[in-house]
């Protein structure tokens, strides 16, 4: 049984996504990377469950593989 929730949880996911984007507006890549690092730590602690964290890491790694193997996959949709 999966401990990580992958069903959509935000009532308005677009707003949540927008909040992430906005937080990075005007930042350099280096500043963005630093911000993301803090955010990951804060959210990981909020989750507070090693098993969920491992599952989240595994899912993120999976998506990383896909981004690498099909870099243009999203280019057909506008």
């Amino acid at each position, binding site marked *: 049984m999966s401990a990580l929730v992958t069903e959509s949880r935000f009532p308005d996911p677009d707003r949540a996504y927008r909040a992430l984007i906005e937080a990075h507006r005007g930042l350099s890549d280096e500043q963005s*990377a630093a911000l993301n*690092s*803090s955010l990951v730590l*804060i959210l990981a*602690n909020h989750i507070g469950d090693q098993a969920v964290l491992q599952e989240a890491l595994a899912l993120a790694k999976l998506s990383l593989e896909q981004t690498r193997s099909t870099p243009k996959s999203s280019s057909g949709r506008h």
Partner: protein
Amino acid sequence: MNTRKTLYQFGYRRSADQDRPSPARHPVIVVGAGPVGLCTAIDLAQRGVPVVLLDDADRIGEGSRGICYAKRTLEILDRLGVAASCLEKGVTWKLGKVFQREEQLYAFDLLPEDGHKMPAFINLQQYYLEHALVARAAELPNLDIRWRNKVSGLKPRNDGVTLSIETPEGSYDLDADWVVAADGARSALRGMLGLDFKGEVFEDRFLIADVKMKGDFPPERWFWFDPPFHDGRSALLHKQPDDVWRIDLQLGPDADAKAEQAPDRVIPRIRQMLGHDAFTLEWVSVYTFQCRRLERFVHGRVVFAGDAAHQVSPFGARGANSGIQDAENLAWKLALVIGGEAPESLLDTYDVERSAAADENIGHSTRSTDFIAPRSAQELRFRDATLALARHADFAKRMVNSGRLSMPSTYETSLSTPDEDEWSGSARLGAPLPDAPMHSGNGEPIWLLEALGGEETLIHVPNGSPPPCGKRVLVIGQDLIDPEGLFARRFDATPGSTYLVRPDQHLAARWRHATPESIARASRRIKGLDGEPA
């Protein structure tokens, strides 16, 4: 700087064994007279086992090696008769502070509780510890130290080992029922058996400088991330006896080890750190480190202990401390096996218990190293994000890792009898007993761990029924008085409570109301006799 000056010189002496036509046979030969070998040999000798201790050198040299000795190690050293001199000479400390730039991120107190004989930690140059152990060894008539006896060959047999030994007067052979290899990180015996020593090698170089000065820093462990005097790296300052301060500076992976040790490189760095010039250099060296271990610590009749069996990074003071805890775990088991009171398989539990401890220590010291010496830009970002968050959020403070200081292992072991009752308090099954201030039957103050010594013991809290039978029983209120109630609190003791303690002072079993059968079974279990007919 790196030629080691001799601090204590011992003499090679010819042994009668060298004149025998055939090899003399000894129950135990310990190889390596460092802290681990010395502790093993002393513990065995105190338990009545005659020991030969071989070392290829004949002196104790200067140089920075272990400096931090943890509470559990001091309790072991106390049983071996050397803690008093170590405490007298050593710097007692328990406070640590962690800084980023000039700012203190947090402080920690390692032993916020009174009522323990030993402090959380002392700092002491390893040569003082070794000297105290050699002096103690000399008091034991059944412990035979042979200096400049270098093992050059090892032949395993089913019932023992033959060692070839080189001395200034030629070579000779010895037979041993058991060999303890405590010959350090570069163990020659490990090589002779062709054993792999696998693990992780870290690239970062660190500079150790022991500096003599009259400083007004308190006896605390100060650790800096990105200190103002050493941009972007880490630094550690720690007090030792004789006005000597240990300084440990991260240099990075590309540092030139030789150039960095030159006084004209070292002195300006330290001047910048201390803000003055009033110091002299006692010792400088550059090191890298590894975290690795043998897959098994017991190979037939050869048993590995300390750095010969496992190696850790220095963060957390887990090298010498875990090695001395190996020695203590091994000595009583080997003594029982040699005395015919336990089967040889008892030594498998040395492997199980101390392997788990080694993994724990390697895990801690690896994770500390990851935090102190990040290996990629993103690792550094996570580290710096943690430090930045530590000012605002408790969770991040707890993630800051400047070394998790050595704590004794709690053994998940077949030698323990699983609890059937509910227990609170700080005593834990498989862990060393928490100490407590007691009085003896005649009213003299005595610490609980002193009263226990190194024998299997039952501690019983009376409830009107006759006390249980065992080889050695201490009854609370008669043999040991609990004047402050700390024993009762730490052991969650109620009338009828009975505790079975292993010879290494780890808790093996406890009952609210024990039966003679359950005690007898648990006692057999400690010796690895569980399941065998009485």
